[in-house]
């Protein structure tokens, strides 16, 4: 109850001079508001960066087949045709840190709609999970579903670039797109993503069920475009038979299903894309995927991997580090303004002590001990600071909300920032209030009473 009484007295004393209190508080308000706004905007920027980086596939792991060395001649990376759906199933079963897996089968070729043709940067055959893994969103229409994958349906999704090049303002959904002279029905349009990190247009793409691409299009499963030139070696010739599909898209192979799995060389895919459950799980996921693949490939412990695993983790780390550094730098600036606010408080409290010398003398005469006076002034400055801190939090949060609205910056409410600010403002109150309070407490009551 005593403490409460002291607090009440402090609030009363502060309210006795509202203008001065307001001006004193302003320093703290600005400091805290700057800290809060920066921390929230910084955290938001980091989150946005993580999202956009994730859409570039940073949570993902790419698995490529390994190389083959035959007679001293290396075929280069990705020449082997040893990644299959069995690997996909193995990964899904064995790896806890993995959220989704999709095979990728790539082909190249011309696409035609009406009187126009185009050669997209990529034509990928994928599974139903692929859109989620690589962060694609559907602008219009529908995504590829599992049934379409299972039966090798002739459906596809197209990127924004292709819409622009071929459709001329027409709505492409429901239209037939000729890919290598096979007609695929366009079931959806992908939301534009822009260029990827290497500057390649990600929207210049066609996405179709991997079974359809594999079975119906020329060159599918030839592991990679570059290795086609080295097809004099015997490795890829077998897979090119898949391209002997004729014009009308008559299925040469029955749709892939578990019961009726084609031999490995026909069921192989070009690469796998694996999504880790989170960025933190990425390294663990790499280990697990590697172990799983070694198991499904039945590799003896002393045999080197017959596949390559790549991640973009370093790139992500770099970006995260970058935002953190920027945010910290700005925070330093904000803290400087907080310190300036604190010095303002000290200044005003010193003036206040001088101004209230008589009051201090009187309080001592009626029985206040030095520590009572010290406590009174200290609590006054802490109350000012905490009050300023609370107003600062509101102002700072408002600012960051306004920023997010006008500038389109993402903002996330940072509780740690709020806790920190309240702590810091109380600390500022103690640190900068202590000297004036100490000065007040060591006044001589006789001198103080006589002070004019």
């Amino acid at each position, binding site marked *: 109850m005593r403490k409460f009484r002291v607090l009440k007295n402090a609030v009363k004393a502060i309210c*006795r001079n509202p203008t001065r209190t307001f001006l004193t508080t302003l320093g703290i308000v600005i400091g805290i508001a700057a800290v809060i706004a920066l921390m929230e905007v910084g955290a938001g920027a980091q989150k946005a960066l993580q999202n956009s980086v994730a859409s570039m596939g940073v949570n993902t792991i790419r698995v490529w087949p390994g190389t083959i060395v035959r007679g001293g001649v290396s075929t280069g990376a990705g020449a082997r045709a040893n990644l299959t759906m069995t690997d996909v199933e193995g990964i899904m079963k064995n790896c806890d840190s993995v959220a989704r897996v999709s095979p990728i089968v790539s082909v190249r070729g011309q696409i035609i709609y009406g009187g126009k043709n185009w050669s997209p940067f990529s034509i990928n055959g994928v599974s139903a999970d692929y859109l989620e893994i690589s962060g694609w969103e559907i602008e219009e229409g529908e995504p590829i579903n599992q049934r379409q994958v299972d039966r090798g349906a002739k459906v596809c999704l197209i990127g924004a670039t292709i819409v622009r090049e071929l459709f001329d303002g027409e709505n492409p959904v429901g239209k037939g797109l000729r890919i290598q002279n096979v007609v695929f029905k366009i079931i959806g349009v992908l939301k534009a993503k822009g260029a990827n990190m290497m500057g390649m247009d990600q929207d210049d793409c066609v996405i179709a069920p991997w079974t359809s691409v594999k079975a119906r299009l020329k060159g599918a499963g030839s592991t990679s475009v570059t290795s086609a030139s080295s097809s004099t070696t015997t490795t890829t010739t077998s897979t090119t038979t898949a391209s002997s599909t004729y014009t009308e898209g008559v299925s040469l192979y029955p749709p892939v299903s578990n019961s009726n799995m084609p031999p490995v060389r026909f069921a192989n895919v070009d690469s796998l894309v694996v999504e880790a459950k989170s960025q933190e799980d990425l390294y663990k996921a790499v280990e697990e995927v590697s172990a799983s693949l070694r198991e499904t490939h039945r590799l003896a412990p002393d045999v080197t991997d017959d596949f390559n695993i790549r991640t973009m983790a370093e790139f992500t780390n770099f970006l995260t580090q970058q935002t953190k550094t920027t945010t910290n730098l700005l925070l330093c600036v904000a803290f400087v303004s907080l310190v300036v606010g604190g010095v303002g408080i000290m200044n005003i409290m010193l003036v206040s002590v001088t101004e209230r010398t008589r009051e201090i003398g009187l309080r001592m005469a009626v029985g*206040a001990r030095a520590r009572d006076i010290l406590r009174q002034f200290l609590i006054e400055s802490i109350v000012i600071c905490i009050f300023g801190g609370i107003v600062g939090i509101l102002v700072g949060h408002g600012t960051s909300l306004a920023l997010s609205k006008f500038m389109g910056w993402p903002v996330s409410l940072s509780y740690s920032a709020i806790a920190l600010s309240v702590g810091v403002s109380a600390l500022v109150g103690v640190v900068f209030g202590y000297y004036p309070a100490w000065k007040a407490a060591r006044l001589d009551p006789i001198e103080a009473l006589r002070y004019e």
Partner: protein
Amino acid sequence: MSLIELKDIKKTYVMGDILLPVLKGLSLKAEKGEMLALTGVSGSGKSTLMNILGCLDRPTSGEYWLDGAEVSKLDNDARAMVRNRKIGFVFQNFNLLARTSALENVIMPLGYTASHMSEKEMVEAGKAMLERVGLGDRMDHEPSRLSGGQQQRVAIARALVNKPQILFADEPTGNLDSHMSDEILDIFREINANEHVTIILVTHEPDVAHRAKRIIKLVDGEIADDVILEPTR
């Protein structure tokens, strides 16, 4: 046993190399219920004596027995406690807290030691004191809205709120006209008569001094004259 007993009190100020003796071995006794006036020209040491008597200052040497306890050697905090429990002060310039109601001014001393009292009890005590000095209708007024006499009455209420045994009044009428001075002195006499509070008036005005029951005249730090006008009952 006397309420106040000073034994050979000396107070010497040190101004650089020069020693400035203000009180030169002063002894004094005062009983409970007395009303005495300390007079003397300025520089005679009456303020210094009052500071020592009021436990605001410590003597350089000598003994000061207050209510059966030696207080001259106490440290600052202990003397603050003595001031709070046993002594009330009234000043020439009232020393009220600005922008603070009369009632809050009165209960201010209670905030330092009366942790046993609830907020309500404190307010009750403050109200009773203000009524006692005839300001029952001005409790919410701030000092700026009160006349000098009223302000001094608030100050008296504040000095009495802790129920002290001794009330020190340092030139209590110095800032008041003669009519108001009489009022204030009447209140002092009343308190002295009804509540047996020992009152020590510090004044250089003979008129004021003669309202007391005993006059002690200081000259150059020594008691020059000690006259009892009316015997204390």
